[in-house]
């Protein structure tokens, strides 16, 4: 489940980087000159590209932390079951004695 989630997030991120996604443009300023619009457009593209990098950086950081927490919880479960089996072996030995 976690592997699937991680892979899909990773694929989306790679796709976002490879295709320069441009977010929806603001159509409210219809009376501005063509020059201003083109300047704003290029500024928007720059900002949006920056936003993608920010998004990916934060995403990777949080995936890293969550995976580590998940790894710790799995390790804790493994240890608990190992301790239980040791306890069972010890009690069965003591009963035999």
């Amino acid at each position, binding site marked *: 489940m976690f592997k699937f989630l991680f892979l899909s997030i990773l694929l989306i991120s790679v796709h976002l980087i490879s295709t320069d996604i441009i977010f929806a443009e603001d159509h409210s300023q219809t009376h501005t000159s063509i020059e201003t619009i083109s300047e704003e457009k290029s500024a928007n593209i*720059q*900002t949006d*590209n*920056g*936003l993608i*990098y*920010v998004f*990916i*950086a*934060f995403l*990777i*950081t949080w995936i*890293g*932390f969550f995976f*580590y*927490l998940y790894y*710790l919880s799995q*390790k*804790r479960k493994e*240890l608990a079951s*190992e*301790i239980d089996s*040791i306890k069972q072996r010890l009690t069965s030995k003591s009963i035999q004695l």
Partner: protein
Amino acid sequence: MGIKSNNLGKIYLFITSIFMLINLYLIFIWAPNEINLGISQRIFYIHIPLAWLGMISMILLGITSIIYLLTNNIKWDNIAKSTAEIGVLFLSLLLLTGIIWSKPTWGIWWTWDSKLTTTLILWFIYVGYLTLRAYGPQGSQGARYGAILALLGIIDTPLIYFATIWWRTQHPELNIGPAANVSNTIDISILQVLLFSLITFTALYIFLLIERYALTKLETTTKEMINV
């Protein structure tokens, strides 16, 4: 860990999560846009804490390794092992966020700059330490070998910090800390958000370290029980 300490851990994690949410609000809503770097500068608020804690980890690893070599007390080795693992996590994330940030600002993903290279060397030292502990000799001999390797990391840590002062580098100069250039002062609101982010990530780091230490202790006890 008992029920009481487990509950305390949960409360601590809950408070840290709230801090994280406030941190996200500050980074994305409250902090101003940096005039030169634009929106990509917001990576700075996670990149710096990761770097700070990655290096703190190495210093902790070095100190606990020295104490272990002097006292031969397994407790210090357990702390060292836990610190190394979390250090790898923080340093890996630091390198990844750095790679992502360098693309929009420098136009490249990676360069063999002194700061970046020394950081990568530190990452290799961490990974080497963990590999040695996992596949090398076990017991006190493995702990001693690991401690000696950790001392190499201590040498590398100041090199990373002073890299921008000692060598010509593409990486920005130091803005905060004892060796920071006084003329390179950063905006007060950016500094406030950065400090909050540092506190939040440090709180998370402490939580992870406590959890990992408890597990390492349990692992050591289980191994001893199996050997008996």
